[in-house]
């Protein structure tokens, strides 16, 4: 594995949606999320993290060191068990596992660290985003909370979005009983005709070095995953989604060279003047004001 990252990073991701629903709101009947005050569209951090996990899972196919902890269809405790097995614990009974862990803890005070390292080494998403592994706490082992270096905030659209309801029909009827009475069923989709969203993220080299060992290779994979996160996530609900730009700020030091907000402020995304209703990426202009960024910070634009 390559070396642990040595620089602090910040990044801005610009992605857009065309005739799709980027992130449904369970509180609003799966309509696209909207900030009620400003009308701006929202995409939660966890939504984007899920996409990154899915991309890594697709590309790496559970290769050694690139497993994904939070998967669809696999119980969490099972993955925890793998860590136990690595420590020579083969008991399957929960109580006995706890006892064994307690015993181990007595004999080897560093066992929680070892378990944590095992999890970090094997699971890409734990190395990246961290995880809460409460199963271990039961045995008063605190391999517990792992804080990952990568932190992502909510994404917000540049301009207010409108969500449009589209009613659709289908000819196949679900139940026999319904089939006697009607020929078609109606369904509903909500779409955003167009929205350009902006997400901001942070990467702490200190947490990488001290806790999870997030490496340079992992970082490259993260950029790749962010750039391609929607390419493996096409579905009827999403419409056309694409990452348009990823702007990475690399500080010259582990602690960073300047406040994050100054870097984020330097990225200006503006609707072009003659455009009233934006419907495509070209309706926006993205400017990175390099003069606001210290020379020691390296700016990399990827798209």
């Amino acid at each position, binding site marked *: 594995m390559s070396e642990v990252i040595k620089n602090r990073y910040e990044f801005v991701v610009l992605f857009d949606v065309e005739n799709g629903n980027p992130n449904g*709101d*369970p*509180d609003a009947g799966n309509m696209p*999320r909207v*900030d*009620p*005050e400003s009308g701006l569209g*929202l995409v*939660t*951090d*966890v939504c984007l993290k899920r996409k990154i996990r899915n991309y890594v899972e697709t590309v790496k196919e559970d290769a050694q060191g690139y497993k994904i902890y*939070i*998967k*669809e*269809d*696999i*119980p*969490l*405790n*099972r993955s925890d*068990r793998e860590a136990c097995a690595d420590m020579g614990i083969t008991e*399957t*009974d*929960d109580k006995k596992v706890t006892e064994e862990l307690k015993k181990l803890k007595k004999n080897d005070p560093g066992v929680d660290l070892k378990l944590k390292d095992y999890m970090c080494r094997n699971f890409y998403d734990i190395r990246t985003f961290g995880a*809460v592994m*409460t*199963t271990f706490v039961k045995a*008063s082992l605190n391999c517990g909370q792992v*804080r990952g*270096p990568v*932190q*992502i*905030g*909510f994404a*917000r659209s540049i301009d207010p979005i409108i969500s449009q309801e589209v009613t659709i029909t289908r000819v196949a009827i679900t139940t026999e009983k319904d089939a006697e009475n009607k020929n078609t069923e109606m369904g509903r989709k909500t779409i955003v005709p167009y929205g350009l969203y902006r997400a*901001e993220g*942070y990467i*702490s080299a*200190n*947490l990488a070095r001290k806790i999870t060992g997030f490496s340079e290779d992992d970082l490259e994979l993260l950029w790749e995953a962010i750039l391609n996160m929607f390419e493996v996530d096409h579905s009827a609900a999403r419409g056309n989604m694409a990452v348009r730009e990823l702007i990475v700020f690399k500080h010259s*030091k582990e*602690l*960073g*060279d*300047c*406040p*994050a*907000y*100054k870097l984020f402020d330097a990225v200006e995304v503006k609707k072009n003047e003659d455009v009233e209703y934006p419907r495509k990426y070209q309706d926006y202009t993205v400017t990175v004001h390099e003069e606001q960024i210290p020379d020691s910070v390296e700016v990399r634009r990827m798209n």
Partner: protein
Amino acid sequence: MGVGVKVNVWGDYALFSRPELKVERYSYDIITPSAARGILEAIYWHPGMRWIIDKIYVKNPIQFTSVRRNEVKSKILASNVLQAYNGADKPLYISTKEDIVQRASQLLCNVSYTIEAHFEMTEKANTSDNPGKFKDIIMRRLRKGECFHAPYFGCREFPANFALCEEEEIHTAYDVVAEKDLGIVLFDMDYSDPENIKPMFFRAVMRQGVVDLRDCEVLR
């Protein structure tokens, strides 16, 4: 009294969970002293020092918004796993779709505070450490925006911007409000016994937009 600093922190969202409402999380009206400590520790911390929050200035009006998300329940039934682990006909893979719950969070939005704090030396300090040295490191980090990891308001998805507060006079959204009682608020966790970590609370009263934590009565 140790050496004091004033730090401005601001951000779009914040979530300082009330312990009594933490399944569907509901934020306190203001940043808790422990969250403020966490922000300062994200900027600089050393075993040889301890942050103590003195005052919190509430600079923006208290406003809420809500977000519901699909979240993973932290633990699934151990018995189910056990069956899956030993069982012959039960599939090894349990759908985590069953393990997903939708939870709402009541967030604060558009928050801005000034945290007035100082630090004290602890017995874990090295012989070469002194308050002046720590103070220099802290001031440098605050001026240059350096941090150990990006500080956040309660949860990591709500990042906090920070800068050294150089204003002579701090204006709050509640300058003209003589007194506003915010009820019982979490003060911090008591880590003195690592086997038995206990919460501590205090009665938060905001006077002219400032919550003064010096000499406040701590309830256990």
